[in-house]
């Protein structure tokens, strides 16, 4: 029996079969967390909200030797407003995003996406960083973050680096993070004037579902309502969330009229590389990707002050 108790650091060890041990550690600093992850010899898992990790543990899909609970690390459970924008700590539950008036005002699409994950219960735990790191192509918050041009601050054994969020997932369940690396926060710039973002997903029920298709759109307009900047991202239609640059190019320089929407739908449907699975068919995903992109673009346009 090993019980080690220090201030806010709890270490538990239990003997599993084949001499394996599972440890749960709650470090106080990001350096300690990085050190633990870098120094681990087996499977290490980061625990923030746990809404993915615990499900995978329950199903026997993962048996970590080390669980690093990052919630006691200073600053990781906060949303900070900086002169440049927002820094959302890696351990901030999605429910908290919806309670931050400034964030909601600046990035309503991102907040809506975060508030669509799972249920109220799940939103009380899950984080957008976790959602990103699961690297599920269907993750709800990711297309919204990609459309918003969000960046991830990564701490690691060789220091910190900041990369666009779309560079984090590289395939289903796979990220570009190196051993010992951990996302500390997600950065969102201040929203540009006359801009708006929106996120929509398709699910068969009204709640409690994984996106069958999803679309995040962020638009900036000039004084006349002409689109000057655009980002369009699609979820659940390829191995990772897609940033559809062709769609953005097609929108820039024009108003979001009927013709622009039709073109947007066509480009988005064409950009999809979906699969048939238990949640939807290839044909369905293609068609609905276009539908959702136009609907999200319409909302984003309205939020940006366009008509």
């Amino acid at each position, binding site marked *: 029996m090993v019980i080690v108790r220090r201030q806010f650091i709890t270490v538990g060890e239990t003997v599993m079969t084949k001499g394996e041990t599972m440890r749960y550690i709650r470090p106080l600093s990001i350096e300690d967390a990085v050190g633990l992850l870098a120094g681990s010899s087996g499977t290490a898992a980061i625990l923030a909200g746990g809404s993915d990790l*615990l499900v995978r543990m329950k199903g026997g899909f993962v048996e970590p030797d080390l669980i690093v609970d990052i919630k006691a690390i200073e600053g990781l459970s906060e949303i900070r407003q900086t002169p440049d924008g927002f820094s959302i700590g890696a351990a901030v539950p999605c429910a908290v995003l919806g309670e931050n008036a400034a964030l909601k005002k600046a990035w309503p699409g991102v907040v809506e996406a975060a508030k669509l994950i799972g249920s109220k*219960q799940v939103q009380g735990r899950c984080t957008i960083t976790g959602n990103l790191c699961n690297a599920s192509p269907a993750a709800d918050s990711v297309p919204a973050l990609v459309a918003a041009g969000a960046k991830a601050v990564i701490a690691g054994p060789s220091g910190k680096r900041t990369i666009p969020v779309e560079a984090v997932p590289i395939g289903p369940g796979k990220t570009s993070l190196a051993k010992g690396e951990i996302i500390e926060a997600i950065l969102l710039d201040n929203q540009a004037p006359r801009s708006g973002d929106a996120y929509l997903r398709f699910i068969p029920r009204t709640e409690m579902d994984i996106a069958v298709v999803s679309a995040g759109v962020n638009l900036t307009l000039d004084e006349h309502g002409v689109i000057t900047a655009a980002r369009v991202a699609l979820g659940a239609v390829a191995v990772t969330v897609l940033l559809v640059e062709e769609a953005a190019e097609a929108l820039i320089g024009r108003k979001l009229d009927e013709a622009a929407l039709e073109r947007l739908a066509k480009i988005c449907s064409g950009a999809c590389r979906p699969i048939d699975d238990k949640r939807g068919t290839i044909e369905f995903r293609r068609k609905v990707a276009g539908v959702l992109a136009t609907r999200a673009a319409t909302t984003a346009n309205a939020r940006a002050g366009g008509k």
Partner: protein
Amino acid sequence: MAGIAVSTTINGDAFEYLCQPDETLLDVLRDRLGLTGAKEGCGTGDCGACSIILDDRLVCSCLVLGAEAEGRQVETVEGMAHGDQLHPLQQKFLEHAALQCGICTPGFLIAAKDLLAKNPDPTEEEIRFGLAGNLCRCTGYDKIVRAVQDAANVMKGA
């Protein structure tokens, strides 16, 4: 057996327990502390039967490790009534027959309590979306929604 020592507060009372690193808070409540009000319907956060309030935040206790409860406030269905006084939600669930088999009831009560704490005067739609994380297979939700509406009215008046 190794274990992690945890001190926590449950329904206002101090508890100390040992748990394994992979043991959920739901397992701790049910198997170690005998608080079987929270139910396991799925173990994956998809049914809400194990709902509890953790530091004013509604969560599924099957998605929380027992070790994470250290130093925190846990609220379960067992703590809803005060002495011989049922919580208005409990009373209204009874009066409206908002339960048939009753397995989902503790989770619904906790979720509804959290909902009304954050939104004392919800519309039907807000109730329906607010409780969408709790599955009920018996009632079709009709009487549950009515019970929550009625309880909200009583609590506003109180």
